[in-house]
């Protein structure tokens, strides 16, 4: 069974983004980019399935500018077998991404598709569900445990107030919660080896898919800053302040 993993190249999670002075967008020029943390978990899970003999091949795919290759190399160094870059300079939104991924799914016919539950830049969390809808397969969102049983996959999902378990017919789409696994550390030899693995580049425009953005960004802004607070000397003073604030 082939496993397809979709990854996104995003502003590194440690970096606090800055808004451009004209409020038109977030300024990411010169900012460190890396693989979306949820997607790294998706790659790790796919590689583990291969190590257990469940998956035969792990394919990583990304959509974006040429520099998105860095996240593909990261996936290859973790153990993916090959990678596909769907190259475009255009702004991408989840519906367009899902449509482009659908064309990869049709070509590669994976038995399982794993994505992160959300990208930490746009925080939308839509792509996996949209892809599942377009391919007309079941979806296991926010997965913290997956277990392949014959022609089904059992997915333990993190939901409000606990977990639930659903069984999906394969092929299916799974999106990863942080708890699914702990991604491995990449050793230097693996990084060198990854340079020799194949990365296929496809122009997004050649796939005959309408991926034009549907949402228009009118402006971006910093959130309202909080009023500066005070430090209290001890518990008694804290209690007194809370009484005055009428929240006790």
């Amino acid at each position, binding site marked *: 069974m082939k496993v397809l993993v979709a990854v996104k190249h995003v502003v590194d999670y440690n970096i606090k983004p800055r808004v451009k002075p004209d409020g038109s967008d977030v300024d990411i020029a010169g900012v460190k980019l890396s693989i979306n943390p949820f997607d790294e978990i998706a790659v790790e899970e796919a590689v583990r399935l291969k190590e257990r003999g469940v998956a035969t091949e792990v394919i990583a795919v990304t959509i974006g500018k040429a520099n998105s290759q860095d996240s593909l190399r990261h996936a290859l160094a973790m153990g993916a077998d090959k990678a596909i870059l769907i190259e475009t300079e255009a702004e991408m939104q989840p519906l367009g991404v899902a449509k482009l991924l659908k064309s990869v799914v049709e070509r590669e016919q994976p038995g399982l598709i794993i994505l992160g539950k959300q990208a930490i830049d746009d925080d939308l969390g839509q792509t996996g569900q949209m892809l599942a809808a377009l391919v007309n397969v079941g979806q296991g969102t926010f997965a913290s445990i997956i277990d392949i049983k014959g022609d089904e996959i059992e997915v333990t999902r993190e939901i409000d107030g606990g977990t639930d378990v659903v069984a999906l017919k394969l092929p299916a789409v799974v999106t990863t919660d942080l708890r699914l696994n702990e991604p491995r550390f990449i050793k230097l030899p693996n990084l060198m080896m990854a340079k020799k693995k194949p990365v296929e580049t496809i122009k997004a425009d050649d796939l005959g898919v309408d991926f034009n953005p549907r949402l228009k960004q009118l402006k971006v802004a910093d959130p309202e800053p909080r009023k500066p607070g005070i430090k209290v000397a001890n518990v008694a003073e804290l209690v007194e302040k809370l009484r005055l604030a009428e*929240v006790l």
Partner: protein
Amino acid sequence: MSILILAEHDGKHIKQSTRQAVTAAGAWQLPVHLLVTGSNSTDLASEAAGIAGVAKVLHADAAQFEHPLAEDVAALLVQLGTDYKVILSAHTAFSKSVLPRVAALLDVAMVSDAISITAPATYVRPIYAGNVLTTVESSDAIQVVTVRATSFAAAAGGASAEVAAVNVPASAGLSRWIREDKTVSDRPELSSARVVVSGGRSLAERFDELLEPLAHHFGAALGATRAAVDAGFAPNDIQVGQTGTIVAPELYFAIGISGAMQHLAGMKDSKIIVAINHDPDAPIFQYADYGLVANLFDAVPELTKALS
């Protein structure tokens, strides 16, 4: 044209977040219809019909909705949705699974986690873990939107809307519900609690011992950082943050929490933030209205005692 809201319930009551979504729908000034899915759920439909601002309840009562699956609920919404201008819900785990599927099937974009609706197709939503707010406009014929419940007041009860049964399409059979494991608690739901008492990893094994009595005093919900959850000191479902639950209570206690970006994204809209931490340089103090630099293991019991 009207607005269709996907209601959510726990089998007994309509969730607070659904009432908050009803308020958010007011931005359009269009009739609001509430879709209630369930099995033997007549009482829930009646409760939904009582929510002020709801013009009509669509009741989808079928065995397959005993435990509603995203695939089946999405199919139902797509069948109904073409008659609506807006398909809306609160940004909860359930809706996060269902609505993107609906949007793709209707071939429209979706807006996730809107914190304000400034015009009928213009939304403000947080990006980059709440560090930036973006204003987006959607030109699609059907707007598919989830809203951040804590940004809107809950609609009151006392109304009496019409309840209409809807036909439920047969399940596509793509998925099966197997079981669930919900945390049993007599505490209020985290996302709508008036007071939240949250702890970080430094509380270690004494997480419950220290925080429970303080939470008990307020009838508060317990929260935790990702680190506390990962270390096994607190269950997953109480994680507050970008990837967990977003809260905005009247009073938020951050105890032994350094204030990482990921955590702040989940609580920085709380009305009053109290931070207790031994590290005077912890970033949480830049967000706290009242900060106390102290040893947690002394200060928290002392605080609990002073309050009782």
